C-alpha cells in the first residue's frame, strides 16, 4: 500500500507527467477536429460538436474540483501541480462550446444570441458560468497570484464552486425538455460529492455545529 502510494506520487511528479497529461487533455479536441474535417461525427455534426465540447467542459470541471479532495484523502500532494492545467482545459473546452453554439447554431447572429441568453434559462446558466470562469482563467498564472496576493486570489477562485452549480443547472435545464436526466444525475452527483466534501471541512460546517450545539 505504501509502495503503491509512493510510486504513484513519484509518477505524478515525473518530468514527463505534465506533458503527457497535456496531450491527453488535447485528445478530445483532436478527435473532434478530425471528425469534423472527415465528416465522421454522424448525421448532425453541429449538434455533436456542441454536445461533446459541453461534455468535456463538465468532465474537466469535475477533474479540477476533484484535485483537492483526492490530494487530501489519498495523501497525494503532487496532484496539486496539475490542477491549473485541468482548470485551463475546462476553460479551453467551454470556449469551444460557446464558439460552436454561437457559430454552428446561431451563425454569429449577435442579436439572436443576446435574445437567446435573455429568453432561455439554460442558455443564461451556461453563459453565466462562462462569464464567471473568465477571470479565473485570466488569473491562472503565477504572476497573477503574486499581483492579487494569495488570499485574494484564492477567494476569487472560489467562484468555481458557483460555476459548478451553474454548469449542472445548465445541463439539467437543457435535458428537462426531454425528461432525460440520467447523465445529468451522474455529473450532479459527482459535483455534489466534491462540493459537500469541501463544505464539511470548512469553517461553515464547524460554525453550524457550534451554533446548533453539537460541539462546543
Amino acid at each position, binding site marked *: 500500500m505504501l509502495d503503491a502510494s509512493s510510486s504513484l506520487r513519484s509518477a505524478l511528479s515525473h518530468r514527463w507527467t505534465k506533458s503527457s497529461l497535456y496531450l491527453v487533455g488535447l485528445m478530445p479536441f483532436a478527435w473532434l477536429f478530425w471528425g*469534423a474535417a472527415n*465528416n465522421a461525427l454522424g*448525421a448532425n455534426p453541429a449538434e455533436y460538436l456542441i454536445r461533446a465540447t459541453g461534455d468535456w467542459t463538465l468532465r474537466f470541471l469535475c477533474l479540477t474540483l476533484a484535485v483537492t479532495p483526492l490530494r487530501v484523502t489519498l495523501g497525494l500532494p503532487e496532484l496539486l501541480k496539475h490542477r491549473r492545467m485541468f482548470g485551463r482545459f475546462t476553460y479551453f473546452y467551454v470556449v469551444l462550446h460557446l464558439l460552436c453554439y454561437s457559430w454552428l447554431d446561431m451563425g454569429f447572429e449577435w442579436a439572436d444570441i443576446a435574445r437567446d441568453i435573455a429568453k*432561455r434559462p439554460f442558455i443564461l446558466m451556461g453563459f453565466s458560468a462562462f462569464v464567471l470562469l473568465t477571470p479565473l482563467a485570466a488569473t491562472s498564472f503565477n504572476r497573477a497570484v503574486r499581483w492579487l496576493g494569495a488570499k485574494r486570489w484564492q477567494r476569487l477562485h472560489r467562484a468555481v464552486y458557483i460555476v459548478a452549480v451553474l454548469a449542472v443547472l445548465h445541463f439539467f435545464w*437543457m435535458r*428537462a*425538455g*426531454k*425528461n432525460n436526466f440520467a447523465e445529468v444525475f451522474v455529473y450532479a452527483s459527482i459535483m455534489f460529492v466534491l462540493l459537500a466534501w469541501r463544505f464539511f471541512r470548512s469553517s461553515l460546517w464547524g460554525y453550524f455545529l457550534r451554533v446548533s450545539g453539537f460541539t462546543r
Partner: protein
Amino acid sequence: MRGNQFSKSSASGFVHPLSSEITPQMAYTQRRNWLKHMAAGVAGVTMAAWAAREALAQTGAEAVVRTGKLTSLTGAVSRVSGANTMEKITTYVDASNYNNFYEFGTDKSDPAKYAHTLHTKPWSVEIEGAVKKPGRMDLEDLLKLSPMEERIYRLRCVEGWSMVIPWVGYSLAELIKRVEPLGNAKYVEFITQADPKTMPGVRSRVLDWPYVEGLRMDEAMHPLTLLSFGMYGEVLPNQNGAPVRLVVPWKYGFKSAKSLVKIRFVEKQPINSWGRSAPQEYGFYSNVNPNVDHPRWSQASERRIGEDGLFAKKRKTLMFNGYEAQVGQLYAGMDLKKLY
C-alpha cells in the same frame, strides 16, 4: 408538380405503369447523384460498394433506391398535392441512424443499435372506439387495404433539424373510411407498441408508456396524413417505426407515432405523451410554426441533415413545414400562438 401528368385514375380503370416509367427524370437523376455521392465515400465501405453497383444498375431508370437489406416495398408516385417535394433526399444512412424513438433509448443512435429486437411479425392493429367496424386488423390486410404510394415529405423535428424522406404507404383516410367512424368520433388516438422485453427504453421512466399521439378528425382525414409501411422502396427499418407508422408532414416529428398497435376513435381530445410530460412545452397540435418558439430553443430555423454544411447558416423554417397551401385551411380562425 408531378401529379399533373396524370389525368386518369385507378378508379377510371387506369392501370399503373411500371414505376420506372413514371418517375420524372429530375427525380431519378437526383437519386443517382445521391448514390454516386455515397459511393464517393459519404457512407460506410459496404454501403458504398452497394451504392456503386446500384448506381450502375440505375442506368436502366429504376424508380426507387433501395439498400437491398430489407424486403422491397414500392409505391406509385402519389398524386396527392404536396406529396412530392423535389428537394434533395436525405441519405438512407442518416434517415435510419439518426432517430428519436425513446422506446429504444434517448440517444439518437440508440434506435439503430437496439431496435433489431423488435418483433414485427406477426403484427396487428386494433381499431376501437366510435366506429361502426371495430376489430383487429392484421398487417397483411392493412398492406392490401389500398394501393401503395411513394411520397417524398419534409420531416421537421421539434429539436430544430429536418430531413427529406421518401415514404411508402397510403392516406390514413383510406383506413378511416373503411372502418366507418360514428358521429361522435371527433379525434383519433394512436397507441404504439410498448414491450419492455423487446424495447429497452420502455424500462426507463422518461415517458409514460405506451407512447400515445392524437389528431383531430379533419387532420387525420387529410390526404397528406400518411399511414406508412416503408421508406426508400423497402419496408420500414425497425428504428423508423416498423411495421406501420404515421407520418404527418406539417407537424413536428413526434406527432408521427411509430409502430402502431391501436387506433382509437374518441370524442375528447386525447392527451399525447409529450403533452402529458411537459404541457407547457408541447401542445396537442404541434404544427410546425416558425413564429412560436419552444421554450428551450427557437423554431425559426432548422438544419437540414446531411445537406446544410457545418458552417452554413441554418435554413428558415416554413409555416406548416411548407404545407400551408394544403393544410392551412384546417386551422382557419385558430390562434396558433395559443393552440400550439
